[in-house]
């Protein structure tokens, strides 16, 4: 059964079988505005929590999306190359950014659940 976690940096992770699918929240995509480009990560790249995993570019600015936990990239959402606006229209669905194999599942304990995240964004 998949479980969804949230970070203070407005990312979500859906974890199933030691692999997390990661994206940005609806709140984050609203703040960024219309996305025009997503710089996707290389498969196999090892990330430590806090490393820049993806750069999302809106009309106006480029913003880093950080790895919420340690792990290795197993997949990047290739459909964003053709249609970066999926992140705006379906931030928590088809607009996912990457998948990563978790290096340390204990790190999930420090993340928020949906109720805590909702309180966080007020």
């Amino acid at each position, binding site marked *: 059964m998949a479980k969804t976690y949230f970070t203070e940096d407005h990312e979500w992770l859906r974890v199933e079988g030691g692999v997390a699918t990661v994206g940005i929240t609806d709140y984050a995509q609203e*703040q960024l*505005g*219309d996305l*025009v*480009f997503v*710089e996707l990560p290389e498969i196999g790249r090892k990330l430590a929590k806090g490393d820049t995993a993806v*750069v999302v*570019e*809106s*009309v*106006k*600015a*480029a913003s880093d999306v950080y790895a919420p936990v340690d792990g290795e990239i197993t997949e990047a959402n290739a459909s964003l*190359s053709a249609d*970066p606006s999926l992140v705006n229209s379906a931030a928590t669905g088809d607009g996912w950014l990457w998948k990563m194999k978790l290096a340390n599942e204990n790190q999930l304990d420090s993340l928020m659940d949906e109720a805590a995240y909702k309180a966080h964004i007020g």
Partner: protein
Amino acid sequence: MTGDDTRHLPLEDLHQVAGARFGAFAGWSMPLTYPPGVMKEHLHSRDHAGLFDISHMKLFEVAGPGAIALLNRACPLDTGALQISQSKYTFFLNEAAGIIDDLIVTRLGDDRFMVVANAGNAVEDEKHLRDLSADFDAKVEPLDRVFLAIQGPDAWAALARAGIETGSLLFMHGVEPRQNWFMSRSGYTGEDGFEIGLPERDARDLVARLLEDERVQWIGLAARDSLRLEAGLCLHGQDLTPEIDPASAGLMWAIPKDIRASGHFIGADALRSIIERGPSQKRVGLKADGRQPVRAGAALIDADGNPAGHVTSGGFGPSAGHPVAMGYVNTALAKPGTKLFADVRGAKIPVDVASLPFTTHRYRKG
């Protein structure tokens, strides 16, 4: 500038009601986007009419028997040759011919002129003009106005429906249609449009009438930037600075030939020697190959890896449908079609030198 000094637009409440997202620009809290978002706002301005609150910009009235002489000194302009109601794009230059600010001067009467200056430079501009005015019989008066722009192919019709006739006013002309109003056919989008300075109470009336028209929508600063960049128009502080002269910026069209040769404006000698030896860099358009934007500050290199210049403005052009940018490159590389690379976070993004603008200007010239 600390948060406490942030200035607020007189119509801020209207932007809040309209759902604006605010951000800081040049010391002001400005509406960056409204609920439709930058992409739709941008396209709406090209297709219909965008309404912009640009009250952060400053209007100065310069008047007196010495007004022409003052402006001839402050700007590389043949001020006395302006017809009444004619506007000219010009600059304040420093002694090195660097651009202190770019502005628009409109002749209102025999010895009365309107100067519209940028928000970020308003304080410095006022001091500069006032210091100069000590030597001339002219007064410099900053005006307390709301300043609105309405831009796009439906702008004139929307104004007409709101009771403002614009019929005979042509591009780069300005008039005073009512007490304490200043209206010019001008803008910062490449579209036909108007800029109107007026008292707050009148502005609230006008905005209410304009927004009853479905062709008119509030447009934020984010789309204002993408619109002007597609139109190849410079932003002072990025594309123009006190270290950049009009020849390097490709703006010599704004300086009449005889003024170049014999004008007594500040920076005249420096500009003449720059023209004589030729500028070492020139402002150009830059078109990226793919979808990845190149942005201000990115270094440019040539095909052999040598430094070629840098990007001063960059983003995505919603009407162009691709990333758009401008910057400065070594004069030898300024020809459209020249292949360069932009360094974006360590990756080399291919960019072509492109002619400006990226979208055709649609001004009403006659």
